[in-house]
């Protein structure tokens, strides 16, 4: 095996196709970083936004008559607070800003009925406000630099199903879609956009030919290995192990590249930045963003193994490399679409259908479980079902291969 692994790795890493695909991945990550960098709300942007709000207050004061002193005083008070926030931002005094936002949100949330009491799902819901408050408290407790904006309208949760107006919805999403070019937050964004079914298909094309071109029952280079003093199972397993190792390498290299961009052009960021996790009965908790990234990668890795097992099976049944990859993509795509239907999600055994777990981020945040009203959609159930199904498919592939060989 120690002879085979370096040879297998060399074989694939020396192909132009592999190099080009890796370059494409690096370019994608780099461009996404540039996009995130440009859209990051920095201290200057924060102060600038405050200035705009302040000038609108000033305009309101200018338009007030002398009899409306109370309202003028309110605007003046608001302007003073804005000045205070801008000054705090200038001094990187996040504590002051977060304190302010917590106090404001706590005032607001008092006027919003909770979902448990009334079925109100208009953005920002009581739940969403609670999330904002707790998130900001977490930021304070962990001494974390916030990713702006952090006010009560800066969050959309699964409970926010209604928007009063189209403009409300537009504003909500503008505040909600936050970007930050620090390593950790950028990786969080990257994971959210990359660890999807699209990402899995990318990996199928990246490594597909490795299994299919030289796979089970093929002529060509596999015959070279077949006439070496090597056990057949070692040849097959070395391919699978190489596939796993190279997948880990590509995932880690991508993460490292993203992290490096963040460190060089911004900062490493905060490992313990809070990520919302849904829990039953209108409750929630947070996990550290770093851990969230690791768990997402782990689940995605499980999904890739599941995809590779299909590839393995089809490589036994079909002769053409391209058709094998296409059929795998179709299988994965169809499984994903069918599993996405309300009927499929409602089934009692649905959490053990591996195709559900292509919604990596929603699975980790438990938003998928919340939407399906089935809290058995957990990452670990996903890992178990992916492992079992992958194993079954690989065993079927071996069985068919042995039957074919006879």
């Amino acid at each position, binding site marked *: 095996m120690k*002879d085979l692994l370096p040879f297998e790795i060399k074989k694939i890493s*020396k192909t132009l196709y592999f190099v080009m695909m890796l370059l494409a991945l690096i370019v994608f990550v780099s461009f996404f970083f540039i996009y995130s960098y440009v859209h990051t709300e920095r201290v200057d942007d924060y102060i600038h936004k405050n200035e705009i709000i302040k000038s609108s207050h000033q305009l309101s004061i200018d338009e007030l008559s002398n009899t409306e002193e109370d309202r003028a005083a309110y605007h003046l008070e608001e302007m003073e607070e804005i000045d205070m926030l801008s000054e705090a931002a200038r001094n990187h005094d996040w504590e002051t800003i977060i304190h302010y936002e917590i106090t404001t949100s706590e005032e607001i949330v008092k006027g919003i009925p909770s979902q448990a009491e009334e079925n109100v799902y208009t953005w920002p819901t009581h739940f969403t406000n609670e999330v904002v408050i707790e998130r900001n408290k977490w930021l304070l407790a962990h001494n974390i630099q916030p990713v702006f904006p952090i006010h009560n309208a800066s969050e959309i949760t699964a409970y926010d199903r209604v928007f009063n107006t189209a403009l409300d919805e537009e504003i909500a999403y503008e505040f909600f879609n936050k970007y930050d070019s620090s390593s950790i937050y950028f990786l969080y964004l990257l994971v959210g956009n990359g660890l999807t079914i699209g990402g899995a298909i990318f990996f199928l094309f990246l490594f597909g030919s490795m299994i299919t071109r030289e796979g089970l029952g093929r002529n060509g280079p596999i*015959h070279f290995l077949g*006439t070496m*003093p090597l*056990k057949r199972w070692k040849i097959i397993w070395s391919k699978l192990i190489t596939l796993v190792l190279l997948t880990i390498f590509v995932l880690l290299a991508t993460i490292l590249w993203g992290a490096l961009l963040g460190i060089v052009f911004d900062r490493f960021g905060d490992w313990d930045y809070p990520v919302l996790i849904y829990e039953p009965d209108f409750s929630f908790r947070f996990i550290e963003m770093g851990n969230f990234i690791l768990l997402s990668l782990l689940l995605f890795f499980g999904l890739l193994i599941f995809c590779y097992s299909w590839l393995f099976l089809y490589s036994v049944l079909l002769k053409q490399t391209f058709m094998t990859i296409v059929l795998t993509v179709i299988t994965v795509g169809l499984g994903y679409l069918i599993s996405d239907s309300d009927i499929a999600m409602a089934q009692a055994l649905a959490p053990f259908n591996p195709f559900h777990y292509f919604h990596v981020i929603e699975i980790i945040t438990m938003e998928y479980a919340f939407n399906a009203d089935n809290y058995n959609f957990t990452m670990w159930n996903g890992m178990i079902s992916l492992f079992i199904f992958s194993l079954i498919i690989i065993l079927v592939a071996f069985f068919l291969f042995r039957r074919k*060989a006879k």
Partner: protein
Amino acid sequence: MIVQVDNLKKKYKKDWILQGVQFEIDHPQIVALVGPNGSGKTTLFNCMTNLLSFNSGTIKLLEKDYTDTSLFYDIAYLQDNRILYENLTAYDHLKFVCSVMKLPNSKIIEVAERVGMQRYLKKRVQKFSLGMKQHLLLAMAIINSPKLLLMDEPINGLDPTSAINMRKILLELHEEGTTIIISSHNLDEIDRLTNTIYFMKDGRILEESLKDYNTKKYFLTVNQIDQAKAILEENAYPVKVNKEEQIEFDDNHTSLQEVISLLNQHDILVEDTEIIRIGAEKRYLELFEGTNTE
């Protein structure tokens, strides 16, 4: 016993590719496997090396069961060049073989020199000509000095110089004790290598020896090839000049002594004379073309 193949049968879909192949090789020798396309030569090699399963029969190589992968420490199979990895260099291929065979890397240079491929050792296979690929396949096959060498069409794509070099290497290996089973359509080359030929037709071995076929072919290397050809043609000798720039003729209508003395009379020096039997071609025509015309 070096090779023992007994009643080997292989069916592919509805056709029997091998229909009871049977032969034994008990001492080191060169054996040629000759037959038209589709006669089952490659299938036989693939069955012998366990690349292909078969329906019935037994195969023993070097007194071991053919499925024993440790056999490949002593057996080499020179296959079709599609087994090569286009993105890797010749060196990568040979290094891998060395690491699997537990050979020192110094063997790579040694075998490259022997085959004559030092110049392109570090080149990627995708830039190789057909002949260069054959060189690499040969190098991979002989790097471990195998006891049994199976060669499927090794002369394909080789230029005359390379073909001569390959012949030289094979004869050397034979002298060193390697048993070689070679399939080829180049009957001249076969005749130069051996007189033990297995003719294959419709999945069976028809004949195992050519001892009764004594027609000879002569190859003369002369110092003035064009002049020599002109003189012989003037004197109505049916000769031709082959790719290796040799005067070539057979003993059916022409005597070797007559030709040499005629050339000497015209001050043409005969530098080298090579004599081979042309049994393979003659017998092949009888067996295959004759059958077809019936």
